[in-house]
């Protein structure tokens, strides 16, 4: 029966810990064990019965997605990333625009040209903002 316990542990090793996970692990373990005893009662060797139970169990991903942890986690991470990108773009464009203003004022204060590159650069944070909003 140790093999079954190990197998169940293995199946769930990537899932974050939660009370729900423990309950369902317990339930699966319990029922697999039951199946093994039943198969043995039908005349199978213990080793065979355990292997059969494990093979017939099927794909774990369904339960995982039902536990709901996976997808939410991924989305949160993507939003976090988009937020960092947005912050970076804001700081980056502020610095570049500040440099443009400085160069403009210092070398050619009579003609105001820094507005043109400013508009061009503003596309950058704008894109990042909408990308972040789309994910949110």
């Amino acid at each position, binding site marked *: 029966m140790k093999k079954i316990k190990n197998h169940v542990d293995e199946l769930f090793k990537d899932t974050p810990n939660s009370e729900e996970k423990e309950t*369902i692990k317990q339930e699966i373990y*319990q029922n697999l064990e039951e199946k093994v005893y039943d198969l043995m009662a039908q005349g199978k060797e213990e080793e065979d019965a355990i292997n059969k139970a494990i093979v017939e169990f*099927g794909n*774990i991903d369904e339960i995982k997605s039902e536990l709901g942890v996976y997808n939410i986690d991924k989305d949160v991470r993507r939003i976090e990333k988009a937020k960092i990108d947005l912050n970076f773009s804001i700081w980056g464009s502020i610095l570049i625009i500040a440099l443009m203003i400085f160069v403009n004022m210092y070398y050619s204060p009579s003609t105001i040209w820094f507005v043109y590159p400013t508009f061009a650069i503003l596309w950058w944070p704008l894109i990042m903002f909408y990308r972040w909003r789309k994910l949110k």
Partner: protein
Amino acid sequence: MIRSDIIRGHLESIILRLIYENDQYGYEISKQISLRTENRYQIKEATLYAVFQRLEKKGLIESYYGNMSHGGKRKYYRITTLGKAYLKETVKEWRETKEIIDLFMEGLD
């Protein structure tokens, strides 16, 4: 074996029906399904537990811990009032679906 993706869409009803008849635990249900279909359809345990989770979240079934078996506690499921109503609805829906599909599937050889 039968194409399982069609059955898959009705697994909730199938399992609900079995729980409706008697309170059930996981392995008993998978055994019942194989038995009644004479092994033409076998449910994967993983699928079964996914369906349990879904049904329980929807409030159609509830679980409780029952008697010991080989030293462990069995988790049983029973149907709720909402579950019964839902099952009745699905049966009605299925009859209608069957009639419609039959219109196109019957009469050919």
